[in-house]
């Protein structure tokens, strides 16, 4: 299979959702597309040079998570100070209508306060709808660690959300 054609097809199918994933991990909308493009570029360059990844989409997704984490680390304090992930009022969709904008704001605030790894687990599980095994693969950690992070993350988010009631 030609790597350019194969990856281009994945790009067409998955680019918007991967940008969404990157946005949730990065906070900064403007960086999300750059991260996803870089992830595809690294995957493509590797594929052209050696062999196809076992699961190209999973490989790209793992690269997106790693690059997003790298971007956060590089920025240090700006990550907390410059959080750009904000709830924006926009035309209601059935999904959005089910949870009001104020409620979403609280959820996003609670998510933002999580440690990075917990946040990654939450985003992979509830946005990407990854299984525990898929999340573990994307993060390069054990399934047990994913479960631990998720458990702690949900407990922390619940506590924060309940505290606002």
């Amino acid at each position, binding site marked *: 299979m030609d790597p350019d054609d194969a990856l281009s097809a994945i790009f067409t199918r998955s680019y918007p959702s991967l940008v969404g994933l990157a946005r949730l991990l990065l906070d900064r909308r403007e960086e999300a597309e750059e991260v996803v493009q870089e992830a595809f*570029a*690294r995957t493509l360059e590797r594929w052209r040079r050696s062999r196809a990844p076992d699961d190209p989409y999973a490989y790209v997704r793992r690269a997106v998570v790693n690059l997003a984490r790298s971007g*956060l680390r590089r920025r240090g304090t700006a990550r907390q100070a410059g959080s750009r992930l904000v709830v924006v009022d926009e035309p209601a969709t059935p999904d959005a209508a089910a*949870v009001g904008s104020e409620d979403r704001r609280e959820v996003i605030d609670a*998510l933002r306060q999580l440690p990075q*790894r917990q946040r990654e687990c939450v985003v992979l599980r509830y946005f990407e709808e990854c299984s525990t095994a898929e999340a573990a693969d994307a993060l390069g950690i054990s399934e047990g660690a994913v479960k631990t992070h998720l458990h702690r993350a949900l407990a922390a988010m619940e506590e924060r959300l309940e505290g606002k009631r």
Partner: protein
Amino acid sequence: MNLEGRIGTTLRTEAGHGTVTPDGWERVLERADGIARSRRRQRVAVVALSTAAIVAAVAGVWLTTEGGGDRKTTPIASPPPATVEPGRIVGIDKTGELQVRSLDGQVIERLGYHAVMPGPGNLSYGWPRVSATRDGETVFVDDVSSTGPCAGRTRQVDRVHVRDGSVDRGIIEGGQPAVSPDGLRLAYVTYSGTECGNNDTLVVRAIEGNFGVRFRTGTEESVFQPNWSPDGTKVSVLLVVGDSERLVEVDVTGPQTEASFDGAREIAIPASTRAFGYISATEHIGLSSPEDSTEVVAFDATGTTRAIGVVPGVADNLWAAASPDGGFVLVLRQAPGGAVSAGVEQELALELVRTGAESKLITGEFVAVDWLSMG
């Protein structure tokens, strides 16, 4: 709706906002070609340098990086022994403790806790920095608070005296300290606007006294990672503007003043490379992790690279620090799949890199390191 349902709905709604670039795939192709070109250049350089290193070793000299693009071989008075290189490093380990270690990883001194890690698995929180004077007597370290309205963001700089472990807390309000080669000045970043805002100001000032210069960015820009040139006349810093990152170099020999970055010298960062400070008067360290290994390069102001070595694992944007003589580089990298200790995944590894030689793993897990001494 239960909590998991609320989270899922919220994330799908929030992630869906905004549009995506129509020519995204073309940009991917351009990036991939750039990575391939960079890889070819580095491979050629590694082969050349490995050969040169063998020749130099036979001649009894070590390669150093003085002289920028025109490399010279310079003898070092006391060549290191074959197994354990001399010198000490200082680092903040994953629990936040400041430690002095030998280059074989043995803990020599423990210097207390400064950078608070707010919780297990939270290694990325705050990313403190440590910087040591060249005489190995004093260490400046980020003191990242975990309390108050700007928890994790509020930083002050502590001064730690290695000899007796005493600490002067909060000598400066700001973060990411870098001490000058003469040990008399600090470069650090801070913010000028609202509390908890982005770092928008690079400050270079005398540790004792008020002499200094402040370089302020525009409103949408931020500054990170100040680093001193070996001669102490310039400071490089990452200037982040929106989604682009520039490496600029400012002259810090001028009078006390307020300045902007308009007159700063632009340093070209090679494609797919992250920049980390000087390795010589004319070159900077770069790390590139195109896949499962990390290439360590030096690059000059034009972005021309030369290979230094390769370390296993990914080191995107973690950290690198050149030794004062430019002969070694410490590289922090990720090491996924490690055991879990005290609820924290062991995901950091520290490699010692010497030009043209295989890297060496140093025991310990750090979030920041610097050289304390070479002897």
